[in-house]
């Protein structure tokens, strides 16, 4: 293809995005667009799959049958999200095996929030309320992103996430109306999950490397700092209803900005976890690798059986 032809295709592509039309897998797209989407979508898929582990940790110990069923269903939803997102990523010409390989080798990232441990039942409430709450704020704009399969997957994902968030908040509400031990459990969970939740929006705008390009492709519509502020403004009143205090002594309503001012995020901790040295990074990855490796003989058996069956069908037909 000549340079002129490529330039022409690029123009058509840019115009489509400007008109808010969807880019579909078979459309021409710049290689960088393809690569960025593979990276972001697979990272999102990996986050869903790894994200099953901290909550899965409480399925066997859920305190009531109702909570156990709800938690099982939630973690199952996450597996489903992982599947849609892997499938959507595959439309960009990468196989699921390659994507797993990238996760297992540590090349691909997943959301750092899942590298924190779930140590009490209240953590299940806090994750639903805060982590899913932050994820929704990050993800709702993606329902209108330019790449069609991603946008459509996100519509469904966001619906389910908002259900999870309400469910998590309801766990916190029950705890906050409960005994002293339950209230303390809820406050302790908020103390541990608050700051990592704020970190879910990524580095501050001046440190974020992908923002400009992602804005252009509608992979992002608001900056990290804007989204973080939105989360804080939305969550503080919810904490007040629960009678819990946000663990930030600098948190204060700013009448002029009509927003909350908040304290400094510990960016050293953020980078430490991103770089693989959080409390559970090694364990989460090892668990995924084990599940995959221990399952190899099962997947091999399914393939072998399918092949034998196909042969049997051919023989029968002959």
């Amino acid at each position: 293809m000549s340079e002129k032809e490529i330039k022409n295709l690029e123009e058509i592509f840019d115009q489509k995005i400007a008109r808010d039309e969807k880019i579909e897998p078979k459309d021409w797209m710049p290689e960088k667009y393809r690569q960025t989407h593979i990276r972001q979508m697979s990272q999102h898929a990996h986050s869903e799959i790894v994200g099953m582990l901290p909550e899965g940790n409480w399925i066997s110990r859920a305190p009531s049958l109702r909570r156990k069923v709800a938690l099982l269903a939630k973690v199952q939803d996450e597996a489903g999200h992982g599947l849609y997102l892997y499938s959507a990523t595959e439309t960009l010409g990468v196989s699921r095996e390659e994507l797993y390989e990238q996760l297992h080798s540590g090349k691909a990232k997943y959301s750092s929030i899942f590298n924190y441990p779930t140590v009490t039942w209240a953590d299940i409430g806090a994750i639903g309320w805060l982590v899913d709450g932050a994820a929704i704020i990050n993800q709702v704009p993606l329902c209108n992103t330019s790449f069609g399969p991603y946008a459509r997957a996100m519509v469904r994902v966001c619906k389910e996430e908002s259900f999870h968030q309400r469910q998590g908040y309801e766990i916190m509400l029950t705890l906050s109306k409960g005994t002293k031990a339950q209230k303390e459990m809820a406050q302790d969970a908020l103390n541990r999950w608050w700051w990592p939740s704020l970190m879910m929006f990524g580095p501050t705008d001046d440190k974020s490397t992908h923002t400009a390009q992602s804005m252009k492709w509608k992979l992002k519509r608001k900056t990290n700092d804007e989204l973080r502020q939105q989360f804080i403004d939305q969550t503080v009143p919810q904490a007040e209803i629960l009678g819990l205090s946000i663990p930030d002594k600098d948190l204060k309503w700013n009448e002029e900005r009509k927003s909350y001012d908040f304290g400094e995020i510990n960016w050293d901790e953020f980078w430490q976890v991103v770089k693989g040295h959080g409390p559970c990074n090694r364990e989460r990855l090892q668990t995924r690798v084990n599940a995959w490796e221990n399952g190899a003989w099962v997947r091999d058996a399914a393939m072998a059986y399918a092949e034998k069956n196909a042969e049997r069908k051919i023989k029968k037909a002959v």
Partner: protein
Amino acid sequence: MKDNLIQYILGIADNSLILGQRLGELTGHGPAPEIDIAITNISLDLFGQVRSYFQYAAQLSDKDITEDDIAFLRTEREYVNVLLVEQPNTDFGYVITRQFLFDQFHYLLLSALQQSTDATMAAIAKKSIKEVSYHKRFSADWMKRLGDGTKESNQRVQQAVNDLWGYTNELFMLTDADKQAIAEGIGVDVTLFKKEYYENVAAILEEATLEVPTQAFFQKGGKEGVHTEHMGYLLADMQYMQRTYPGMKW
């Protein structure tokens, strides 16, 4: 009569409770996300059934109890599930074989229970059998894939069949509560379909190119509350919150 019905309900529901608990341990650790979703789904179905049974049992009870008291606050000797369902998730071969051996029984049980003279039991059976017919298909399909897949999968699943076979006979033993419930037309006489069960199981094993074990020694005890050593750990895990924080609402 009411006490007997409660005991009869536990004899059915505890199997779903303990198997559901075992399957729940696997969520997030399956060989592929599709399998993870399916196994979690079966666990969800079983817990859904448990809730229907236990809510009914709580309603029948003279004591002021809930489904959760029944699920979480009994001693090990008071759980009356069969030994088969409490066996650990040794590997996927054991998980599927345990499921297969139970599903084949569960389906026949619920088919008959739909005719119970107790309207609630009949209704629960009617709702549950739709779910269990799916479980039965899932586990039988996987028995075939593993049995007739690779040499390794064949050996692994055969090992699981051999090891778990000794727990099948207990499915057909009648407790006093069973006998009384049968006499009242509420309960199902499971001995009537024992032959059919073993024929169905053998047919699928054969299709899966697996050998039907010929051993004649069987284990029992679960139905009388005498469990394998695995059970205590399963309960310690399951009851943790209720035991640590007694009397609280969640």
